[in-house]
């Protein structure tokens, strides 16, 4: 019954337990600078705002020696995404890849931090910007690259391409090209989980521009009403094609929108892997243990255009620079090195490993056969 606004639940506790998060550099795309004082600003920006139910205790990762291996692994995931996407860009330019191709470059901390919180038997619904999600989920780079090349060896046999990665075994339930669509499908997945009384979670990933389409609120309403175990992960990269967030959303703080459904919403610094991981861990726990859907908004930035076809001239270079200065891969590496958790040789090895995977993927894709024209109507019907 109680509204968001009536009940200041565990906000105080929560803030105390949580390390201070750096709000994204001021002036960064779309988020108008607040005129309120620092505490108010924190809340207005939604950083760490736990919503009415509270998101439970913070996550477990920190820059401490016992996490050394896992932290290096996570950094490696980010590096792999970056190298992979750079190669995709190159291959697109060299006309090996066609269609629309959207990259995760700049968003690696959000992608890795969020997906690493899931169990292998949880489900993921993604959108067209899905290469990174697929990589973190463990789909082989070669299978993704071959897909982008339109080859029969691709993860969906060249039928879907960049926007439609899918892997049943890994419960990667697809990238989708229609804004908002996957939110509705996620409700169906959540319904099936509750129907079978399983302790699984659905993560549904979408951009901030996708929160203005009917699907968004229709889905949030149903998820809350039926207590579906869904984590709505909004990757707020500040732009929807050429539109800055405040041009499309009357409330540009996406984390606040679930108030219309008494659903918890939290904003997190999407350039900070551990912060994302913490916030999403709470959301996953809520979903799994309490069947409480929630929304996490990760503030990040896409360093490139909307898709490979977009030179992104609508953004001031100073704004881009502010975000480039917060490059999640560089930052995380510095943090690891400062904490003595990664030596330069280790970093180099990780880099080389990523590079090798990507090289191999491109070679594999190049060498693979295209689908046979005679197979054109395979899979129209089951």
């Amino acid at each position, binding site marked *: 019954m109680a509204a968001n606004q009536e009940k200041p639940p565990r906000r105080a506790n929560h803030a105390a337990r949580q390390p201070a998060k750096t709000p994204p550099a001021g002036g960064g795309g779309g988020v108008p600078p607040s005129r309120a004082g620092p505490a108010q600003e924190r809340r207005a920006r939604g950083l760490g705002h736990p919503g009415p139910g509270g998101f439970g205790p913070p996550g477990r990762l920190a820059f401490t020696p016992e996490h050394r291996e896992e932290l290096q692994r996570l950094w490696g995931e980010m590096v792999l995404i970056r190298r992979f996407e750079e190669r995709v860009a190159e291959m697109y330019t060299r006309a090996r890849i066609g269609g629309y191709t959207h990259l995760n470059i700049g968003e690696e901390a959000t992608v890795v931090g969020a997906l690493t919180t899931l169990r292998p038997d949880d*489900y993921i*619904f993604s959108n067209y910007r899905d290469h990174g999600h697929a990589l973190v989920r463990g789909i082989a780079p070669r299978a993704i690259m071959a897909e982008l090349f339109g080859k029969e060896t*691709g*993860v*969906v*046999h*060249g*039928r*879907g391409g960049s926007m*439609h990665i*899918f*892997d*049943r075994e890994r419960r990667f*339930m*697809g990238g*989708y090209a*229609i804004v908002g*669509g996957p*939110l*509705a*499908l*996620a*409700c*169906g*997945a*959540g*319904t*099936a*989980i509750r*129907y079978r009384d399983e302790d699984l979670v659905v993560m549904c990933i979408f951009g901030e521009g996708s929160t203005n389409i*009917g*699907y968004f609120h*229709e*889905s949030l*309403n*149903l998820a809350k*009403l039926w207590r579906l175990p869904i984590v709505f992960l909004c990757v707020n990269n500040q732009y929807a094609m050429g539109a800055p967030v405040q041009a499309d959303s009357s409330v540009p703080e996406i984390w606040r929108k679930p108030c219309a459904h008494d659903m918890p919403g939290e904003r997190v610094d999407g350039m900070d892997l551990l912060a994302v991981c913490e916030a999403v861990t709470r959301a996953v726990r809520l979903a799994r243990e309490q069947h409480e859907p929630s929304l996490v908004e990760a503030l990040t930035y896409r360093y490139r255009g909307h898709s490979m076809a977009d030179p992104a001239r609508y953004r001031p270079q100073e704004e881009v620079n502010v975000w480039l200065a917060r490059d999640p891969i560089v930052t995380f590496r510095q943090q690891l090195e400062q904490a003595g958790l990664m030596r330069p040789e280790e970093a180099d090895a990780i880099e080389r490993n990523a590079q090798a995977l990507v090289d191999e993927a491109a070679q594999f894709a190049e060498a693979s056969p295209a689908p046979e024209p005679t197979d054109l109507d*395979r*899979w*129209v*019907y*089951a």
Partner: protein
Amino acid sequence: MAIKTYREALNEALREEMRRDDRVLLLGEDIGVFEGAYKVTAGLLAEFGDRRVKDMPIAEAVIAGTAIGAAMLGLRPVAEMMTVNFLLLAMDMVVNHAAKLHYMFGGQTTVPLVIRTPGGGGHQLAAQHSQTLDVYFAHVPGLKVVAPATPADAKGLLKASIRDENPVIFLENLALYNTRGEVPDGEYLVPIGKAAISRPGNDLTIVGWSRTAPMALEAANRLAAAGIDAEVIDLRSLRPADWETVAASVRKTTRAIVVEEGWLSFGPGAEVVARIQDLAFDYLDAPVQRIAGAEVPAPYAKSLERVSLPSADDIVRAAQRMLPRRRAA
């Protein structure tokens, strides 16, 4: 075997399939306590509870999306859209999602769901509530589109649709719910994609489906009295459609009339004509005639609505124009 209404036959099919298979669940607006706007789901909440009969908010897009997502995870949802007019709010889910996923994900997921929905006019529901939009679904590869005309087919085809691995759009019709006919008890399945010859005949082929199939039969019975021996074909499904049965009939009769409830231009009847002229060109003695709804938004006034819809009279007149010599008979 017992005489039942089309509505009861549908209800029986749902009940039997839900008893048979726990993966079958019902989704829709007011299908539980209210038992459906047209009472097709009567008694099912009482028998199966709200785990399996799920009332949903008025949000057609997410109703369809929920069905798709649940189907991807292995359930067999049957969603009711209160009328086909509201299914227009879920076209993206039907066309861009349900119909596409099996293909675009390289066969890695199926989408075994049924969307049941009534269309049709004749109840003075006016422009936004009286449409027949069969072509919107029939046009889309990846969907199956079923449109039963009789209580027996309603049961047999709905059961077959629920067991199909593909997304099935199951088109009902307001004017059929109260029609009666023999319905086989228990396990009775009608395969999707096979037309029925509702009445054999030699002079003329009349093709219909859903509401226009019994209309064609009525016309044929009247024509028989006038000495015209019409063969009536009930397509039963539009995708896949049984063109061979239609063509074989026309090769025999050399004349055909196609009857559809919706608007003439760019309706499914055009496809029937195109197939006939392709598969039976050399046999045709006259252009295939189409009888369809008037090309107007459905009017409310009875005086207008009546003339806007096709009728058995229209069929009889068209047949008599096509076979003038027999007219005197």
